[in-house]
């Protein structure tokens, strides 16, 4: 009986071993199924470029949706709206989108480097310089050298001044890469800006160099000759503008704003400042561009909204000028401008003004003409405008005020305008502080953004302590 029991126990043990052991041993490969079937572990350079080049347009628009209120192109229909009144708003989403694109561009750089795809590498560097420049000009010091590869979860902040060297370096490297002739891979429709036209990318690199060099206008580092030599290698025509294309499936983001406004999700209302700068109130000359840039009221007038005041008793539709479908800036498939021929002309005018007024004046007029032609103004209207005495002052009488005024109009909705505004100390004629201005600003205009909450909450030790009146290094 005892032996039988033992025998049975033994057989149970063997049975158990037979059942369990193979299962445990065999399970290793059975369990090796955690490779994500939905998302690849590598991405093709074409897909990375497609996303980064297209999203760069969205970044420009995202930032413009902040800066256009500071620069009083747009005004909120709601009273005391935080962007109108220059409140310290942590623009987390904008920061995220910029780093998202720069991260993809960093991966693109690595992969294009490995593949020796120099055209992809060059374009990646230019796009990075665009996004990095946008980021620096909003926030000053930002993470860069420790960023993008999660080597640390709390990346250190680099100085904005040092990063300005990085911008030039990225662009110089890009020019070398793109100028090197034969390419193993062809860039095509995956480039939503130039569809792979390398010459235009090189011109864009030079245009950006000029833009960033001009940013130094207040600093001892400023060198007008360097700006002009970069301009010489930049665009020759509106058609060369760096713009992002939009499609019926993915419409221009300003067109979305206009469309939403039609559906009473209010937005895209034009500031009184801009309307008065164009309707003769501020400068005594009526600008023919108004109907080509924004909409009119039910009564066929152009009426702006005062920044910070909201619409008051105006109804939600029909009484104020807003962005509308069908114009150059806000049609469904409108291109979105990053940097343009017209801007280059105004850069040239500003840089040449001190040393070569004739060149400056010529650039000034060409900048106006280029912008007017682009938005669709008829040639007789253009002629009338540029021969108006308030505009056609002659080379000798050209002032930086006039250049800045015209550049302000030609840079409608471009975030670069806020750099101009700060360089120019918001000295535009009749540009007054908004109603309900953030009282902590003491009547002054803001000079920068505060850092996003995602940074203060997750990288707090590295985030510089700033307020809205602290100036970036080039603004001092």
């Amino acid at each position, binding site marked *: 009986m005892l032996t039988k029991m033992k025998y049975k126990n033994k057989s149970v043990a063997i049975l158990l071993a037979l059942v369990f052991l193979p299962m445990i041993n065999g399970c290793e490969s059975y369990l090796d199924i955690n490779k994500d079937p939905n998302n690849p572990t590598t991405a093709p350079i074409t897909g990375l470029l497609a996303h980064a080049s297209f999203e760069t347009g969205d970044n420009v628009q995202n930032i413009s949706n902040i800066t256009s209120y500071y620069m009083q192109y747009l005004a909120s229909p709601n*009273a005391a709206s935080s962007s109108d009144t220059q409140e310290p708003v942590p623009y987390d989403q904008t920061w995220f989108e910029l780093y998202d694109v720069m991260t993809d561009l960093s991966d693109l750089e690595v992969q294009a480097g490995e593949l020796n795809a120099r055209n992809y590498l060059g374009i990646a560097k230019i796009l990075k310089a665009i996004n990095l420049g946008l980021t620096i000009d909003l926030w000053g010091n930002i*993470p860069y050298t420790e960023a993008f590869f*999660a080597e640390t979860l709390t990346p250190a902040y680099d100085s904005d001044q040092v990063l300005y060297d990085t911008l030039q370096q990225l662009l110089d490297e890009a020019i070398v890469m793109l100028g090197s002739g034969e390419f193993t891979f062809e860039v095509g429709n995956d480039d939503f800006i130039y569809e792979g036209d390398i010459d235009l990318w090189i011109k864009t690199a030079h245009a950006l160099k000029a833009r960033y060099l001009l940013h130094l206008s207040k600093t001892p580092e400023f060198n007008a000759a360097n700006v002009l030599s970069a301009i010489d290698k930049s665009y020759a025509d509106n058609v060369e503008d760096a713009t992002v294309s939009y499609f019926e499936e993915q419409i221009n983001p300003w067109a979305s704003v206009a469309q939403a406004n039609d559906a009473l999700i209010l937005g895209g209302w034009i500031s009184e400042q801009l309307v008065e700068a164009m309707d003769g109130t501020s400068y005594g000359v009526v600008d023919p561009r108004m109907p080509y840039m924004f909409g009119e009221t039910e009564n066929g007038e152009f009426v702006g909204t005062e920044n910070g005041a909201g*619409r008051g008793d105006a109804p939600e539709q029909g009484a104020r000028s807003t962005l509308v479908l069908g114009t150059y800036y806000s049609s469904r498939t409108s291109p979105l401008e990053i940097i343009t021929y017209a801007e280059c002309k105004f850069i040239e005018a500003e840089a040449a003004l001190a040393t070569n007024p004739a060149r400056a004046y010529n650039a000034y007029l060409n900048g106006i003409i280029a912008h007017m032609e682009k938005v669709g103004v008829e040639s007789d209207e253009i002629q009338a405008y540029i021969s108006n005495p308030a505009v056609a002052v002659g080379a000798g009488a050209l002032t930086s005020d006039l250049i800045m005024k015209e550049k302000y109009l030609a840079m409608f909705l471009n975030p670069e305008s806020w750099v101009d505004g700060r360089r120019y100390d918001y000295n535009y004629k009749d540009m007054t502080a908004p109603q309900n201005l953030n009282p902590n600003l003491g009547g002054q205009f803001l000079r920068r953004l505060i850092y996003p909450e995602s940074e203060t909450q997750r990288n707090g030790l590295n985030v510089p302590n700033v307020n809205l009146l602290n100036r970036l290094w080039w603004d001092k």
Partner: protein
Amino acid sequence: MKMKFTPLFLLVLCLATTLASGQTSQISGKITSEEGDPLPGASIQVMGTMVGTVTNLDGKYVLETPSYATKLIISYIGYETAEVEIGDRSVIDYQLYPDIQQLGEIVVTAMGLEQEKRSLGYAVAELGSKEITQSKQPNVVNALAGQVSGVQITNSGGAPGMSSRIIIRGITSLNPNADNQPLFVVDGVPIDNSTSESVDNTPRGLSNRAADINPNDIENISVLKGAAATALYGVRAANGAVIITTKKGKRGAVSINVKSSVGFDQINKYPDFQEQYGQGFSGDYSTDSFWPSWGAPIVAGQVIDPSYKFYDNTRNVMQTGKQFDNYISVSGGDDYTTFFGSVSNFQQEGVIPFSTWDRTSVKLSGDVKVSDKFNFSGSLNYIKSGGDRVPHDRIMETLMYWAVTQDATDYLNPDGTQKTYGNSNPLYAARFWTYEDDVNRMIGNINLNYKPLDWLAISYRLGTDYYSDQRTEIEPGPIGAENEVPISSTGFIEETRINSRDINSTLNLTINKKFNERFSSILRIGQDLFDRSSNSLVATGNEFDIPLFYHMSNTKELLNSQSKSQRRLIGVYGDLMLNFDDMLYLNFTGRNDWTSTLAKANRSFFYPSVSLGFVFDEVLNLPTAVSYSKFRASFAEVGKDASPYQTAKTYESASGFPLNGELGYTRSNVLGSPELRPERTTSLEFGLEASFLQNRLGFDLTWYQSNSKDQIIPVPVSNATGFTRLVTNAGELENKGIELVLNGTPISTLDFEWDIRLNFTRNSNTVVSIREGIESIPVGSQFGYVGATTSMILNEGDPYGNLYGTSYERYYADGKPEELEELDRDLPLLIDDDGFPTRNGDQLIIGNAQPKWMAGLSNSFTYKGINLSFLIDVRYGIDQFDQYGNFYSAFGFLDYSLNRNDVVIFDGFLENGSANTKPVWLGQGLGPDYANYGPGFYRNDYRGVSENFVKDASFIKLRNITLGYDLPASLLDSTPIKGVNFSISANNILLWTPWKGFDPESFSAGASGNATAFTGLGYPGVQSYFFTLNLTF
């Protein structure tokens, strides 16, 4: 032990009582078992007194009874307690029957083990078939509402087939996307209870998959709450388990059950609408304005147009919902085989027209006893479910835009286009913007049981749960008629195909060992395997070419997406139960899991549990009034793996692409980590249960604490890292609570019985830690106009579910505190110079979405064949964001906005501390003081302050009241019918709540989401009436 002490104790007691009483008489007799054996030590007590004695070794007794004694109570451990009329007898012999209830109260626990409730060291709640089906809830999750302590059921709304959420003992994960719901197990086989919401942005109120289970097929449900109870299930039941046992065939004649029920639904609660102002703005009369009700007084409009009037559109658009439930089951068997089969069909039309949900279920199960040593059984359940899930969010939204002086029910032009004065019509979208799901599901299992030896049993179970969920959404484009107002300028068709397959395999060995009369053990060891594979494919075709022809091939743009997932888990477990004298039970378990979702080095993890059950009434010699008493204690740990694909860095196809023929890729924002380790939850539980007076009164009290540590959560990181979240082990969440169940039978006579049961639950949780440097985790947020958007955010040190939003600024007499985190609503308002309250745009804590406590009370009265029962469900101290309220305020819909033309002085203080005295007008445009008030108080101020819409959503609900009648058997003697029951019942007909608006039990995230504080523009809740006929043959 009992033999030694109890008689002595009772003898003393007996003597004392005898001495104390006056007039007495004597009763004697013999107490025997069914077989006629004497029962020594049986207790004889005079009802309602302390007078009593016990039988001697021959089962005999002699008892002096007071003259007023009418009944004896005769009890013996393990036997049914009897009440015996004394009458004028002086000799009372009595035969006791074994008490199956008490000795053998069997509950189903983890792994489908049937265990004596007496032996368990943790809380288990059980519901029987009657409790499950009484409320006529087609969704088994809803059927549990209010009936189980520690369990929170939240219905996501009133749509047919809509999902319902179940949380046991609080939320356990800091991960906003985690499923905190328990595992559902049917007949030992885990099933899928996921809720797959519609992919587009309009919520459609889809089903949680457990809704496929037909409640009529359920025999009972056990709810396993703590980690000790679920230790054997391991990972998958880390949030508890709902163990469903379905009906089986029984030996004996074939029994046929036919049940037919018809029900009617209505919205149970409406907001209070204003009926005095019509379409327009600034008080102006209009018939084409966008604005639904900021216009002229309707009486003034009637001067212009006599037919101008108020339409109660929200009520008019709704219909009476209908439900039909038909069920037939056949069961029977002999000594060797039993079988059970059922067919059922449920059909429902919702209160919002065109919303439907149907379910057809066919079930077969059988059990074959091959020999004394071997038997096998199997079960197969086929379910077909689905319906048209109307875009309720859009319907309810457009209802709020639709002018109150226009008839919303008049929505269709003769040519089939939308009839409108300008705004979108809610009914037109309900009818034509369809979303139909069609689920075909097969749940099956097979069990083999082999008992080669007395002390050894081997069982094997294989189960599968397979379903396909096919969905088609059609948004029509223009039909090409003149001047039509289409829903969409392009239209689209979206086809979704979800296939999911679960396989579960369990091998179990049970080894019984009886060491001696008083000490025995049961050892179970087993191996468990789980394999889930799912594949979801969504194809969208945009812009129809030929109108009204809805086919993929007829669209101009095709987009598709795919999501695949596979998860495997292997577990080995052991469970040792030691039983000392049926009094002290000690249970050890251990389980090791190997999961596919963690990297090789971390995929294996072990966790133990120990629990103790101590039945102490026999040890402590408690008074006989205590029929049963037990102390429970348990400690358990449970591990939890990650969801699939969290261990790598990946790229994803960028949204918006393909575009212009190009694919876009972007680095995934979530950084996976190969270093992920399993999460750990440790839980501690103590319980005390007792019943008194022959089980007429009982309680069960439980205290628990559980700490979930090392959570696998995507923690937010600096975006400059190239990621927004890093999946890592971090954080701890603590849940603590008490559960109390009281039950009693205040009245029990032959003809009349009253049963009452109360359960009470209090759970509090704390986010103990998140991760160094990370302050908070956002769970979700919901849109509110101009800054009234409200968010649920987790912060270290705070409870789960805090709601953040904007508020009215308060006046602080001693200056505003620097770091203000929470709004104190009791403080006076700070009034601006313009006379209106100042808005505080800072995000303050303005509420919490977890209930402070919950309770359920059920009562059942039975008089002969008539049964009346009702269930009251209470949740207290819970806040929600009322998105309806926010929208209504923007459009002047509710009765409080009738003061729109009043001049008021807001209570509060100015910055300088003086009381506000400035009268202001609440209306729009020029006020009586000729000041311009713009769009007026409600649009300028009120709608933009979250505080106005985060409100107490406590409620007391009469979940169900049922009146049933069993026809007396004597009437059925000459028929083949064995039983007839007719019942009428009603759900949710009474609701007390401070909440304004529709039933507060509604949220827009669906059962799979954790942001339950947001009502969204949900499908309004309903009340229902049912008529049911049940025949048994």
